[in-house]
């Protein structure tokens, strides 16, 4: 049995860990609120943008736009968005796992795969594959639209030059505080929106367009890429904090369990010590008789 002192040090150590995890839990909760507000703020912009895109692309043909060009898929690029920091449970691991599954899938069908990593965790994990074309590190803690723009422009340039035929983005979708799920969605070629119903088109027909719808699309499409990338980053930002909150809550609970068990061990050891001391005294007194 462990000595009294050993158990005591262990208990105080575990208690200190619990304090840290508790604090991290609270920090994550506060940051989650910030991230969710950012998402809320972005929603009207994204909604309006979607509306305009579907209005415009309803009638437009897809052949004229280089960003919409559907080619024979020989090379696929995966943009993997993860967090910069760890200690958030299996959140990043799940995203990376999905990325690797996708990679295996594409490679099995004879396509070449490359990665663009956003967030440090993803780039660390995927470095081993040797397929990382570019990584953006340490931007997840405080990113703005221009960070998303930088990534989107770069990806679009690769696509336009013909180096990649298809681009997908993998990120952790924020379902709720308890659930975050890795998701894949397509970026390039830009998908024509099918949501445009005939009524909407009639409505948009009343507009004066300056310049023509085609030219407006030309301007809007790169911006739309930014919206997709920014959206994924926002989702990952919120998911990261939510995942960390849960993970740290679990850790705090585990610490409490450990302290409880260790206290029992400690008390048992203490009792054993007292008993053996008593036995000694009784034995000594007996001998003196």
């Amino acid at each position: 049995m462990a000595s009294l002192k050993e158990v005591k040090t262990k208990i105080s150590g575990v208690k200190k860990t619990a304090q840290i995890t508790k604090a991290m839990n609270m920090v994550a909760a506060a940051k989650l609120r910030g991230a969710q507000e950012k998402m809320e703020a972005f929603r009207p912009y994204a909604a309006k943008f979607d509306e305009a895109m579907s209005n415009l692309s309803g009638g437009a043909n897809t052949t004229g736009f280089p960003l919409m060009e559907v080619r024979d898929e020989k090379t696929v690029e995966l943009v993997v968005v993860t967090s910069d920091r760890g200690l958030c449970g299996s959140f990043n691991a799940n995203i990376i796992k999905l990325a690797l599954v996708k990679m295996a899938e594409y490679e099995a069908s004879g396509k070449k795969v490359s990665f663009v990593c956003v967030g440090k965790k993803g780039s660390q994990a995927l470095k081993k594959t040797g397929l990382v074309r570019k990584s953006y590190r340490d931007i997840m803690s405080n990113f703005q639209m221009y960070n998303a723009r930088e990534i989107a422009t770069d990806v679009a340039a690769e696509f336009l030059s013909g180096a990649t035929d298809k681009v997908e983005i993998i990120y952790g979708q924020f379902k709720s505080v308890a659930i975050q799920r890795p998701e894949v969605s397509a970026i390039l070629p830009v998908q024509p929106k099918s949501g445009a119903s005939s009524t909407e088109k009639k409505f948009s027909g009343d507009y004066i367009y300056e310049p023509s719808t085609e030219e407006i699309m030309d301007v809007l499409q790169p911006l739309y890429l930014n919206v997709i990338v920014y959206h994924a980053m926002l989702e990952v930002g919120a998911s990261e904090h939510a995942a960390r909150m849960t993970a740290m809550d679990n850790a705090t609970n585990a610490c409490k369990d450990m302290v409880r068990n260790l206290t029992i061990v400690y008390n048992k050891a203490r009792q054993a010590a007292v008993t053996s001391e008593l036995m000694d005294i009784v034995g000594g007194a007996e001998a003196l008789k």
Partner: protein
Amino acid sequence: MGQQIRLEVVTPAGAKVNEDVDIVNAPGFGGDFGVLANHAPFLSTIKIGTLTYENGKKREALMVSGGFCEVSNNKITFLVESAEKGHEIDVDRALKAKERAEKRLAQAAQQIENFNRKRAEVALQRALARLKVANTK
């Protein structure tokens, strides 16, 4: 006081302006345009530049970067990637961005491929627009 039009400027970071104004002047694709109350439905892309609006005697300027605007039902909505008022602009950052873009363009003359050149040009435009709005304040 004549009729007014509702102006909304929406950016990824939330709504920036939401008020009734007399006139809006914006940098459109084919040049600047003004919109008054009860304008016909209209859709245009927006270039990097200065958006101004007047409300009574008050006149405000905003730096806007790429996006588009939509006029319908006596409401004008701008969807832009960023919109900044003069006092919100980080002049140092804009100056640095300007220098960087200029440097890149100078060497670009020889080698840099088309795409990077365009990127630098856009960055330069943004920086100049920011500085312009910041200075009017």
